[in-house]
């Protein structure tokens, strides 16, 4: 905890600072992805702040510290990247995001634009269509009975509404999920997942860059709405495509894994499906609880802009701090029976969408998609059974499944 130990930690050897528990776990490993909960518990119980030797970074896994770091964006900044890579020392793999990887005051202006494009009022405009599409999807799947809840539901439903809502062309949409997977892998360390994703990224990057241009976005969609804000002078014409890129990066794979998480929960916990069926108005909360329970976005980094004391530990300037959102969402200091999926839980305060100024700007869109899908299931589906091997998908940031074979029966 002494100031001198910080000098040691700033050297390339990255030795652990005195007083901070050192842990030899790799949160970006297959072992971790297969069973994060056990290691989350180790991280939480080791202390409020830990040192991860493998990558030479601080970590916070308790709800209080994760919340505190998220809500002090001037000390724990985003402009040096929200992955392991420090943009002050390393060139970003793609042009830096002007919202996710920005700090106030620059962030305030771009954030206001996306917040308006995805506002409660904007959600009212698309709600009816999203609801009808969810009902149609469930009807189609009930006719099949057995299917893969990842490809045929968790991916298929958002793909049936989001690209149209954005105003994207039909051609090339198959690039959307690989691009998002790349973005979320790239927040991780230079491991195989990240390196391979970047090596294969050229066609996906080219597709997304083209789709962000005004002429490729249909009138009335979220993309066109962003460009319209450039006409209004709120952003520049050069900034508009970068904000469209933010929605294409973070607007699809996240909801895919959120809906996938909810399906996996309902398939594993039939009593909770029964509770939801008895009161379909619980659909929105059942989705929210799945976000808390599975935390589809597991981690984000911040970088310190100054020396700061966190939970009694002194952290120097320019240090990366890894926030374990999934661990915070199951911290027994904050949650009763944290390992229980409970569709009636009061979920307010979970950090599955983050917290503070960078809290997911698309959270209302995610909740809308999750709610209308679970409401359709609550009304139409009597049972969900896992009917084949469940396979996990590995990503440095996103937690979700590769395959979830299920069989459903009609209500």
């Amino acid at each position, binding site marked *: 905890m002494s100031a001198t130990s910080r000098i040691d930690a700033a050297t390339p050897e990255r030795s652990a600072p005195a007083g901070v528990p050192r842990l030899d776990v790799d949160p970006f490993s297959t072992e971790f992805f297969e069973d994060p909960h056990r290691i989350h518990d180790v991280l939480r119980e080791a202390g409020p702040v830990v040192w991860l030797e493998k990558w030479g970074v601080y970590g916070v896994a308790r709800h209080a510290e994760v919340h505190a770091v998220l809500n002090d964006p001037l000390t724990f900044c985003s402009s040096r990247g929200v992955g392991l890579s420090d943009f002050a020392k390393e060139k970003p793999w793609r042009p830096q995001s002007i919202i996710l990887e920005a700090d106030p005051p620059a962030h305030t202006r771009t954030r206001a634009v996306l*917040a308006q494009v995805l506002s409660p*009022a904007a959600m009212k405009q698309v709600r009816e269509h999203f609801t009808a599409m969810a009902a149609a999807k469930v009807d189609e799947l009930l006719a099949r009975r057995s299917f893969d809840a990842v490809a045929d539901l968790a991916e298929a439903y958002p793909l049936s509404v989001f690209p149209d809502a954005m105003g994207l062309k039909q051609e090339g949409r198959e690039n959307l999920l690989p691009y998002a997977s790349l973005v979320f892998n790239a927040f991780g360390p230079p491991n195989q997942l990240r390196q391979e994703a970047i090596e294969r990224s050229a066609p996906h990057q080219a597709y997304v860059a083209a789709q962000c241009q005004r002429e490729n976005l249909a009138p009335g969609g979220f993309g066109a709405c962003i460009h319209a804000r450039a006409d209004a002078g709120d952003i520049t014409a050069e900034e508009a495509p970068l904000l469209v890129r933010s929605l294409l990066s973070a607007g699809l794979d996240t909801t895919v894994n959120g809906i996938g998480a909810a399906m996996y929960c309902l398939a594993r916990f039939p009593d909770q499906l029964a509770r939801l069926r008895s009161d379909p108005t619980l659909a*929105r909360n059942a989705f929210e609880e799945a976000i808390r329970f599975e935390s589809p976005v597991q981690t984000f980094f911040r970088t310190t802009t100054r020396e700061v004391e966190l939970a009694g530990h002194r952290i120097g300037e320019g240090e990366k701090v890894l926030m374990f959102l999934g661990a915070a969402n199951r911290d027994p200091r904050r949650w009763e029976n944290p390992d229980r999926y409970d569709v009636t839980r009061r979920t*307010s*305060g979970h950090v599955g969408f983050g917290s503070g100024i960078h809290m997911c700007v698309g*959270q*209302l869109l995610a909740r809308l998609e999750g709610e209308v899908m679970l409401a359709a299931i609550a009304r139409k589906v009597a049972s969900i059974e896992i009917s084949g091997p469940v396979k996990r998908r590995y990503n440095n940031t996103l937690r979700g499944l590769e395959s979830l074979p299920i069989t459903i029966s009609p209500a």
Partner: protein
Amino acid sequence: MPSITFVHPDGRAQRIDASNGESAMQAATRHDVGGILAECGGNAMCATCHVYVDEGWLARLPAMGDDEDALLDGAAAERRANSRLSCQIKLAADLDGLVLNLPDRQL
């Protein structure tokens, strides 16, 4: 420690003890006041902690920010002149006795 009252649409009044410095939304969720959803957890991003401030109290509250103003336009229940988001009402001793009316819906 300020004490505040939430009035449900059916007229039922629920009086709760709040802590100095917490928001009216935080006090409501802590005491499990139904009718305050607070999906975004107090970040002024969701408009699901909408309240109608009782007459006489409105002018004594902190001024409304642009974010809150824009969000209230999209609130599920009708926006009125006394509409506020309860996550933006920070409580202190001078708000002891505050009365907040709940809308009929938040979604």
